[in-house]
């Protein structure tokens, strides 16, 4: 039904995602303070920072799950504005993976993957299922296609969630602490899938505490604290010679054990 909607006025030369002086408040608490960030096509960005630093809020603003009150957010040059009618058009291009997986528990794995392509993109059932199986194979879980989410382990569920997002063939993937709810032995299987994606130059913005992941695959590491972007640097610089005292303190805490 939405398959024939007017295309967005995309600017192919614009950054994939751009935040310009974004501010957001929850009541009196300012969650985001003048956050600016540009993510180029194919760039892999890791956002880290202590809890409550606004990193999840920042990426949730990118697909309008949270609304910023001030500043600009642009996806391929298209600005997200209050009253923006076609937010679902943006969301089709922006995949998101959540800490709690958020699979649809009443649907099988395969149905989880085909629901949005069929109902939102208007793709036929057979084609949607073929695409779904292809992505399930990529996340190495094709044999579970007919199970329900509750029959899978956390790591398997998160891999299904990644495949579900990929089925919409998004241009950018947002990861909101994708491994934080997992048992330690399952973190690797999810990270492996994410590393593969990164190696294929999928544009990724990933909120995570997995510093190994940041070191190996990120082009850029962003450190946020108290709603501000404190440091933006390539991983070599970020880990060896951070410019900010707050970054050093944070790294000392999470790497120093």
């Amino acid at each position: 039904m939405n398959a024939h909607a007017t295309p967005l006025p995309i600017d192919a030369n614009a950054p994939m995602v751009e935040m310009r002086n974004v501010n957001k408040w929850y009541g009196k608490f300012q969650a985001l303070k003048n956050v600016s960030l540009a993510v180029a096509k194919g760039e892999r960005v890791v956002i880290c920072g202590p809890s409550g630093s606004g990193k999840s809020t920042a990426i949730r603003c990118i697909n309008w799950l949270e609304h910023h009150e001030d500043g600009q957010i642009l996806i391929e040059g298209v600005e997200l504005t209050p009253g923006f009618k076609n937010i679902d058009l943006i969301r089709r291009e922006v995949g998101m993976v959540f800490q709690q997986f958020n699979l649809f528990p009443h649907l099988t794995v395969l149905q989880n993957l085909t629901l949005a392509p069929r109902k939102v993109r208007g793709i036929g059932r057979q084609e949607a299922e073929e695409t779904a199986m292809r992505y399930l194979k990529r996340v190495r879980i094709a044999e579970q296609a007919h199970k329900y989410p509750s029959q899978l382990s956390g790591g398997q569920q998160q891999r299904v969630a990644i495949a579900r997002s990929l089925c919409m063939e998004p241009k950018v993937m947002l990861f909101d602490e994708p491994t934080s709810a997992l048992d330690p032995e399952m973190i690797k299987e999810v990270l492996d899938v994410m590393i593969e994606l990164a190696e294929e130059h999928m544009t990724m913005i990933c909120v995570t505490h997995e510093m190994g992941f940041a070191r190996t695959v990120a082009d850029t590491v962003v450190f946020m604290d108290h709603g501000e972007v404190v440091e933006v640097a390539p991983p070599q610089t970020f880990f060896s010679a951070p410019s900010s005292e707050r970054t050093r303190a944070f790294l000392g805490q999470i790497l120093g054990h």
Partner: protein
Amino acid sequence: MISLSVVDILGFLLAATRWTLLLSVIAFVGGGIGALLLLLLRYARPAVGARFMSLYVELLQGTPLLLQLFLVFFGLPLLGIDVSPLLAAGVALTLYASAFLAEIWRGCVDAIGRGQWDASASLGMKFFLQMRYVILPQALRIAVPPTVGFLVQLVKSTALASIVGFNELTKAGQIVTNATFQPVVVYGLVAVIYFCMCFPLTYCARMLERKLSISR
């Protein structure tokens, strides 16, 4: 005073039971449709519908069903609409059921976590797609036991329709009592018939509750 055998009385009462069942079905189906519309109003944006929904529910939950029945039965003719007792009872019970079912189902929808909304939204699904394919199917599972429970209330509430002269089970009981002067026998039988309609429903609700809690 007429002398009737218990079998005769039962036959007369059972004939009237059809109308109780019909009224229950009308109220449940009509109320269900009304509740679904109220529910969509409640969650759609902008949120003006939500205000209307809660006002409607408050009004209907905060006044006796008997008065609602009177207002429909005596009020509609003032507006020039001629109402039969069946129509008046059907309308009043539909309004009543829609308010209660909407409130029950709202609780069930609220029980579906925020993450389901987020995930479906992030896949580009609009409100109606989210409701139709993600939220309502899950809410439905939790909704079955309380909905059946309410249906039992509704069947019993149809007895009030006797007051506006609708010839359902309770009214039939009054008529037979007046004719036979055997209130204990007659109303005893009426009670048994109500029980026979309601017990399968409560039993069913209990079974479903057990089954759904296992499959979770």
